[in-house]
């Protein structure tokens, strides 16, 4: 933005710049900083306004229009030549003629036009997609009624950050009816909906019955949930999002009253939310809004119990301030509440604050907002760099193109055309190109946002992205296209009209092209390209290396030759107590299949996250001093470690006696857990307990090697294993040969037990590992694509500049050759200049890359920021391209025949 404003300032007459420039920039900086403090929206609005105003000011100053004498013709303005004073001035007609001419000129060089439009479309399309993402996550307002009175109330997490609240704490907050006109709570979860084509898993919210009323989101259909839906044992009811209603129920107008199957439970539809509403989290889309009475039937009794547990923090709380109540008042009351809870439940709530955030202070979540802003900024920066590259390249092309028209332009200037007219010729061309590119970019963005929104590109979020090409995004694209058009059109036009008309007419094309200022301009453009592509290359290299590392990371288990089937007996109407025998039978059946070496069951797969439990470990005190720690949990059957090839380091693996419960409660732990909580590896015989059932002591019977629990990028993570499982489990079968061959048999074994048992997932463990890498792969591909494109553009730019410089100096080269200089020396001079540019710009690019690489560090495996290898790789690619781009035209020059050279021009 600083650059843009300075560029706009450059458009103003020198006198104005000298007199007012510094003060203007300072004022702008101060006003901008204030706008930023008011929020992203205000900042954007301010920037746009300041910039358009600056451009308008520059135009007015150049045209000599006065603020003080609006009607007076400005003394410096010239009459438009060729129009008699009696003829009325029709600016629109002029514009149309101008555009028609520009169109004709572009059609005369279709390759140039097509290439330009394509490059522009990519640049603008990528930026539009990025903006739609930023807009969805950070800018687009939520469709709440009187949003300024809505506040977010958060209890602290164990780490002391505002997080989410327990349901009893929500009740305490809601009791403050003097502060809040109303309060509602919502819990984010996923659930599977049974449709005609099987079960689909989707992001959902469990909400209090007054949720829609409190937010002021109207219902399209139905009465909504009654207050009895807040009670455990109440009727399970659901409100559909409008999108889910349309896509999953064909927009059935009779949908209210229908019973649908969610996680195997029957739930009655009581409403459809207003179109466009997709839950509390902006930019995401949740399809179902389930009542609290659904917690038990759809998740389990344990989940229903959360309504009474103060140690679960599962709920987001929204409050609507009563008339005249300020956020500070609400905060004071919540401070008092937090103090009271700390007194009443010291082991749970001591030091746990309650924070009230006013309207608009929080976008997604207090702890996530910063990260989201960071990630969005990083992505937007890369996209912006690409656009910068595109612009500087096109500016260069336009410059070359305009220079070849030097004669025509000089003739026109000599015949009395104004500089403005010539400028408008070039600019109308560039604007036309930019408009076509903008349209192309919009199409590309439409495709890309569709791809992102449909989940074709997996995202690490428990929700579907809700991207829209709405007015703000389309405005962004339009403004961007115009700015881009101006950016790459104005510069060459300016330069072109500055040249001395007479020398051009005398045939000295060099007067146009090799003036110091032009050279400076062109070299600057090339340097920008080299630096920008260097930054993108650095990032692309980092991601490519990280992906390569991720593929080689020791996952801790053997992924090859394992077939995976996931099912959920609850979908077939069984309850949890019947699950064990069914899974035992499934295990037996599959083990009996030919070609199966071993079989096991697991509630969670590595690399897919899963559940966790709050434990009390004998002899260990947590930092908070509560004695409790939260540890990731996996439930498995005997044979799991053998089937997964996870080495058992100490003790033994679970056996059938463990599964039958003959040995009492037993567990296995990962080495990371042993080290974290007992400080040594061999912890066989140690014990721990659960916060939820304090009387049970679990004995550790074995220590297993570490596996990657959530992602390949993680450090060794504490994890414990229990024997058993719930209604939904994975069946893992190690095969002697390719795992895919066994998949149909697995499915047949399942349906052989009960034809209604659903196959929720049928895949191989290798494919599952690959899936977990897919986001990385997409990121690497995108950045690699950007990097390649950037390199190509920078190479083309360099080629054009060197080729042009050589061509322009052909005559000089010829003369010097006749005088005895070797062609090599002469070309050397041109190439040296280029090399210098590349070195300087490359160094700048590396420095910028080094500065922004840490923004991406979270997603990187085995590389941290810019190291020597990455720098060398990126610089090497850049140099190679540059050498090729410079060498081709230089070689042509050394083969010049001096006689031919002298005849040139």
């Amino acid at each position, binding site marked *: 933005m600083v650059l843009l404003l300075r560029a*706009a300032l450059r458009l103003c007459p020198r006198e*104005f710049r000298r*007199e*007012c420039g*510094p*003060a*203007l*920039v*300072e*004022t*702008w900086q*101060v*006003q901008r900083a204030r706008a930023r403090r008011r929020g992203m929206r205000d900042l954007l609005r301010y920037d746009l*306004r*300041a910039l358009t*105003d*600056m*451009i*308008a*000011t*520059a135009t*007015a*100053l150049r045209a000599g229009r*006065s*603020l*003080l*004498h*609006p009607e*007076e*013709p400005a*003394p410096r303005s010239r009459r438009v030549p060729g129009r008699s004073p009696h003829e009325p001035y029709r600016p629109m007609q002029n514009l149309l003629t101008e555009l028609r001419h520009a169109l004709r000129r572009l059609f005369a060089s279709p390759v140039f036009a097509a290439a330009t439009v394509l490059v522009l479309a990519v640049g603008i399309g990528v930026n539009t997609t990025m903006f739609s993402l930023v807009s969805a996550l950070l800018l687009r307002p939520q469709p709440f009624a009187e949003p300024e009175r809505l506040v977010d109330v958060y209890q602290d997490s164990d780490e002391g950050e505002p997080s989410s609240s327990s349901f009893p704490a929500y009740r305490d907050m809601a009791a403050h009816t003097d502060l809040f006109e109303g309060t509602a709570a919502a819990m984010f979860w996923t659930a599977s909906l049974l449709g005609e084509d099987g079960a689909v898993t989707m992001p959902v919210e469990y909400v209090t019955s007054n949720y829609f009323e409190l937010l002021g989101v109207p219902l399209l259909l139905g009465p909504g949930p009654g207050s009895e839906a807040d009670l455990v044992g109440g009727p399970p009811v659901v409100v559909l999002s409008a999108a889910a209603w349309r896509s999953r129920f064909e927009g059935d107008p009779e949908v209210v009253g229908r019973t649908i199957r969610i996680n195997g439970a029957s739930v009655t539809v009581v409403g459809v939310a207003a179109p466009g509403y997709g839950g509390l989290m902006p930019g995401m889309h949740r399809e179902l809004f389930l009542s609290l009475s659904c917690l038990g039937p759809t998740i389990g009794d344990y989940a229903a119990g959360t309504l009474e547990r103060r140690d679960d923090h599962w709920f987001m709380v929204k409050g609507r301030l009563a008339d005249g109540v300020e956020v500070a008042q609400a905060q004071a009351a919540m401070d008092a509440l937090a103090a009271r809870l700390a007194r009443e439940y010291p082991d749970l709530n001591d030091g746990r604050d309650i924070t009230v955030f006013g309207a608009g202070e929080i976008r997604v979540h207090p702890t996530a907002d910063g990260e989201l802003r960071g990630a969005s900024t990083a992505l937007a920066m890369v996209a912006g760099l690409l656009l910068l590259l595109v612009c500087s390249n096109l500016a260069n092309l336009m410059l070359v193109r305009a220079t070849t028209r030097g004669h025509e332009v000089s003739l026109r200037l000599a015949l009395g055309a104004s500089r403005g007219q010539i400028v408008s010729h070039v600019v109308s061309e560039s604007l036309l190109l930019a408009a076509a590119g903008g349209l192309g970019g919009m199409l590309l963005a439409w495709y890309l946002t569709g791809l992102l929104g449909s989940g074709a590109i997996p995202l690490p979020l428990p929700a579907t992205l809700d991207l829209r090409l709405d007015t703000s995004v389309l405005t962004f694209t339009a403004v961007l296209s115009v700015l881009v058009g101006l950016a790459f059109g104005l510069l060459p036009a300016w330069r072109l009209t500055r040249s001395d008309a007479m020398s051009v007419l005398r045939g000295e094309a060099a007067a146009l092209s090799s003036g110091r200022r032009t050279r400076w301009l062109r070299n600057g453009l090339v340097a920008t390209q080299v630096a920008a592509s260097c930054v993108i290359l650095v990032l692309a290299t980092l991601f490519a290396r990280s992906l390569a590392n991720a593929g080689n990371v020791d996952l801790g288990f053997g992924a090859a030759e394992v077939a995976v089937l996931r099912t959920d007996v609850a979908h077939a109407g069984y309850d949890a107590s019947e699950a064990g025998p069914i899974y035992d039978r499934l295990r037996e059946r599959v083990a009996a299949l030919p070609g199966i070496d071993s079989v096991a069951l697991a509630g969670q797969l590595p690399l897919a996250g899963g559940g966790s439990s709050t434990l009390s470990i004998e002899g260990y005190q947590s930092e908070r001093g509560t004695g409790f720690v939260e540890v990731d949990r996996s439930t498995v059957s005997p044979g799991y470690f053998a089937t997964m090839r996870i080495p058992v380091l100490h003790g033994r693996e679970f056996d059938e006696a463990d599964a039958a419960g003959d040995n009492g409660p037993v567990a296995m732990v990962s080495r990371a857990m042993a080290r974290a909580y007992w400080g040594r590896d061999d912890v066989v015989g140690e014990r721990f307990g659960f916060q939820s059932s304090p009387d049970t002591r679990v004995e550790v019977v074995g220590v297993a090697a570490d596996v990657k629990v959530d992602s390949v990028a993680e450090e060794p993570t504490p994890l414990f294993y229990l024997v058993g499982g719930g209604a939904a489990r994975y069946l893992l079968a190690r095969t002697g040969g390719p795992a895919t061959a066994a998949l149909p048999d697995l499915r047949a074994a399942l349906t052989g037990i009960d034809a209604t048992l659903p196959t929720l997932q049928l895949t191989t463990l290798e494919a599952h590992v690959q899936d977990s890498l897919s986001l990385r792969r997409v990121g690497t591909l995108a950045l690699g694509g950007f990097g390649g494109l950037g390199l190509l553009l920078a190479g083309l730019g360099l080629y054009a500049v060197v080729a042009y410089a050589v061509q322009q100096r052909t005559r000089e080269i010829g003369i010097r050759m006749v005088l005895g200089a070797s062609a090599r020396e002469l070309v050397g001079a041109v190439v040296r200049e280029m090399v210098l540019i590349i070195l300087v710009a490359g160094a700048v690019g590396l420095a910028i890359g080094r500065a922004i690489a840490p923004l991406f560090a979270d997603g990187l495996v085995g590389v941290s920021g810019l190291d020597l290898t990455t720098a060398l790789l990126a610089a090497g690619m850049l140099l190679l391209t540059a050498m090729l781009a410079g060498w081709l035209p230089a070689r042509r020059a050394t083969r010049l025949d001096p006689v031919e050279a002298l005849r040139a021009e």
Partner: protein
Amino acid sequence: MTYGKPNTEPPLKPAVFHILLALSERPLHGLGIADAVEAETGGEMRLPPGTLYRALKEMSDEDLVRPAGADADPRRKVYALTAAGGELLEREARRLARLVEVARSRNVLTGRA
């Protein structure tokens, strides 16, 4: 058609009027003027830097405002109203006041704050 420097006459462009009005209280630098204008209009009129400095330059060229030293920050030039500027402001204000009187006499202003 007259050449040379004509005298500026009302009606003035809003930006020019508001700048004169802001300076009528005390000399101010550019940013101070923008702040004063925003405050005096209850946030309705916000002067972006381009328009602000263009207007200040033209007004100083026409002797409606004059430089009056610098702030602690050397970039911040302080402007003060000249006699001509003050007179122009007064004429514009009278013109506006007359219009408001007319509006008042026709009961346009009743019913609203």
